[in-house]
């Protein structure tokens, strides 16, 4: 027990644990953020300001400022909704699914990915609410007693969507906060400031790392992961029901749930990499978020990107094999119709771009990774655009065919939502532990220091 060998091992372990706390808490405790944080935050705030101004105009003038019209009633707001919800899937996938699969490398990225999830779902939730036109009546979507003596219509996938997305949001926040509590306790015990001690103290709920508490905590974490795993798959499946339950050619297809889920993971991981590859360089986290972790994520993108490509192929095959004239027309129209440019953008970014990740050289070049990941998200936005716009602008009645053009406000609200997202994410990086310290410590080989093997 007290031999020199175990003591060295124990010393190394304690130094490693302290090093993790120092480097992660150091970001939060530092007087000033890294220099690049300030211009980035200013830019994000400006873009978020664009969102605020656009929303003000939207609410005072009305949805007529969008390009939406009679046959293209969904248009950009729903494209953006599905885009953001999709991005919001990586966080829970990393924290829950990879946890159940005992993928220890997830511990370095799960906190930031969960934060990203919550911010992406906030952005996502914005769009259907403003798309209703009178967002102050959005509570009509919820089963609340009202003076019209009417209830939500639960046969509608849009009502399912309300339950799925709000449940996902709630569970994501609970899961995220649960993970943060032990790390808040670390920050609480390190800070010298009274104000911070009070704030972190309240957030840490008085956590004292007791083994009896850890026992229930770990069990709860496992249960949460087990609950969140089917939840994360259900949410994008329900989002895909918004389309699949409709009878429009190009929407009415059973492949949608798995295809949407694969796409969501695909875009979510791309967003995680887009954020974390620069963040780990700026905050000197390369020893925690290692090259191996980045490579693993690239491989996930390659796998899910190929699944999405396979789904595109299957859709085309079924359009031909079903012999349904409307379905056949819809897909030919997608590839060769007026929106062919959007379709081929989607194919290029979603199917071809991830194939570069077959090469180790590319999986280890940060700039190329970020570039490819941004292209992937461009592609995933276009996927939803293609599904929604090409189907609605070429529906059953040729009389309602037309070309859809967005307006300046479609663009400003979408771009503005990135401002909101990045503002929240940069605040998170600055004021919260961006890496789950206790999980990294617990998943490291040092966690077994001094353990006798029986």
């Amino acid at each position, binding site marked *: 027990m*007290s031999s020199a060998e175990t003591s060295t091992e124990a010393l190394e372990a304690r130094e490693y*644990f302290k090093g993790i706390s120092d480097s992660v808490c150091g970001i939060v405790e530092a007087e000033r953020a890294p220099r690049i944080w300030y211009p980035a935050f200013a830019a994000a705030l400006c873009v978020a300001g664009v969102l605020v101004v656009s929303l003000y105009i939207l609410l005072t003038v009305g949805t007529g400022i969008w390009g939406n019209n009679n046959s293209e009633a969904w248009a950009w707001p729903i494209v953006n909704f599905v885009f953001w919800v999709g991005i919001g899937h990586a966080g829970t996938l990393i924290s829950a699914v990879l946890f159940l699969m005992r993928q220890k490398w997830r511990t370095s990225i799960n906190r930031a990915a969960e934060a990203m999830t919550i911010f992406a779902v906030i952005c996502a939730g914005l769009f259907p609410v403003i798309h209703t036109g009178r967002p102050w009546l959005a509570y009509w979507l919820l089963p609340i007693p009202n003076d019209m003596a009417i209830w939500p*219509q*639960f046969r509608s996938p849009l009502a399912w969507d309300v339950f799925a997305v709000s449940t996902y949001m709630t569970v994501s926040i609970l899961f995220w906060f649960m993970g943060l509590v032990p790390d808040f306790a670390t920050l609480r015990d390190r800070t010298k400031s009274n104000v911070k001690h009070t704030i972190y103290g309240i957030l840490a709920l008085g956590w004292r790392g007791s083994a009896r508490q850890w026992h229930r905590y770990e069990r709860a974490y496992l249960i949460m992961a087990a609950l969140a795993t089917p939840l994360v798959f259900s949410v994008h499946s329900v989002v895909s029901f918004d389309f699949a339950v409709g009878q429009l050619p190009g929407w009415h297809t059973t492949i949608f749930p798995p295809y949407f889920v694969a796409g969501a993971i695909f875009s979510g991981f791309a967003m995680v990499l887009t954020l974390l590859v620069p963040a780990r360089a700026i905050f000197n986290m390369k020893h925690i978020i290692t090259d191996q972790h980045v490579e693993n994520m690239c491989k996930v993108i390659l796998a899910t990107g190929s699944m999405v490509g396979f789904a595109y192929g299957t859709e085309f095959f079924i359009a031909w094999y079903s012999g349904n004239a409307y379905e056949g027309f819809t897909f030919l129209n997608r590839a060769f119709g007026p929106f062919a440019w959007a379709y081929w953008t989607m194919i290029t970014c979603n199917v071809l771009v991830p194939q570069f990740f077959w090469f180790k050289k590319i999986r280890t070049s940060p700039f190329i990774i970020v570039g490819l990941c941004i292209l992937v998200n461009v592609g995933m936005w276009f996927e939803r655009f293609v599904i929604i716009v090409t189907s609605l602008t070429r529906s059953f009645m040729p009389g309602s065919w037309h070309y859809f053009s967005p307006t300046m406000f479609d663009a400003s609200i979408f771009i503005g939502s990135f401002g909101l997202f990045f503002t929240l994410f940069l605040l998170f990086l600055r004021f919260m532990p961006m890496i789950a310290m206790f999980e990294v410590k617990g998943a490291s080989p040092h*966690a077994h220091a001094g353990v006798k093997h029986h």
Partner: protein
Amino acid sequence: MSHDKPNDQVEDKLYGLLAEYESPGALIEAANEVRKAGYTKFDCHSPFPVHGIDPAMGIKPTILPVIVWAAGIAGLGLAILMQTWMNNWTYPWNIGGKPLFSLPMQIPIAFEVTVLLAAFATFFGMWGLNKLPQLWHPLFGNDRFVEKAMCHGFFVAIEAEDPKFDDEATKATLQEAGATAIEEVRYKTSKKHRALPNGVIAFMVMSVCLALVPFAYIAKKRASKSDKPHIHVVPNMDFQAKAKPQAASNMFPDGRASRVPVEGSVARGELKADDHFYRGITGGEWATEFPKEIALSAETMERGQNRFDIYCAPCHGLNGAGAGMINQRAEAVGATATGWVAPSNIGQESFAKQPHGQLFNTVGHGIRSMPGYGSQIREADRWAIVFYLRALQRSAHSTIDDVPAGDKPAIR
């Protein structure tokens, strides 16, 4: 709260012994030893969950999964009940004639609510079973614990309340288990040392009070009456920039909100090209004949009398002599002195000489102080009135010879 009351005892009480160990492995060994020594009120503290410590400490599996399971089942049942009650019973939705109750359509929401309630149970159940939040704890007063326990230290704490606790013997047990440091943990028993800072309490009280303001305002407004219009927080489309009929408007040069039809435009069915029937004119002169649409029959005469009694008799009197109710009243209140023009006697010679068309025109458009009745009485009825007027005029100049022989005895 800022200064101690005399009876608020500040006693330095022993919480227990805190021993530090060098590694997770050493902690497990120590926990094993402490348990074997028969201690029950002790705990281990580490910056991350140390795997293998549960059996070493003798921790029994938590009941949490059962709570979560129950909450999940409750969520499932609740969701199905909710959907059935809302869509089948209290507000039956007929969607394309599908059966009101069907389980498949309920699955997505039932699943989500199951997960939601189970997640709530996991989250709140875990904190509840762990007796958290508990912001104050004796160990937080120990500098070594605060410095290391959440970062890189591994501790065993044995409480003084443990029946086996004995300062020296317990110290020895901990020491033998390989402790690198052992400290006594003391704490102040006064409530003051456990309370939240005043600033936090003030903030919480203020937040609660401020949060109640809107509700109090709504409650007050609901309970009081006002003659002012409703507050329109969201105006929806209650106030629109629109022109109302007969209102003024700056939009058009003539200052009117209502538009005049284009000159010469005629509404459907309003052409009225037949001068004789609609205006009582034939060949530029007052018509002397009744239009062909008017049957000179007893029914027309009755209709004319009926309309005359309604529209004309109030002024002209039932016999047309000009002594109607209004005229009687006007004379009774002395209105003749202030310019009351008595209604004409329809039976007078000059009227009897007028062509049918002229009388028709007078009924429709009025004359002198008599208003026109064209807007109230349709053309056919106006002609019927004219027809009846002829009868009244005839009766005004009649003699006993005009009475049919058979009726003479009745009026004599």
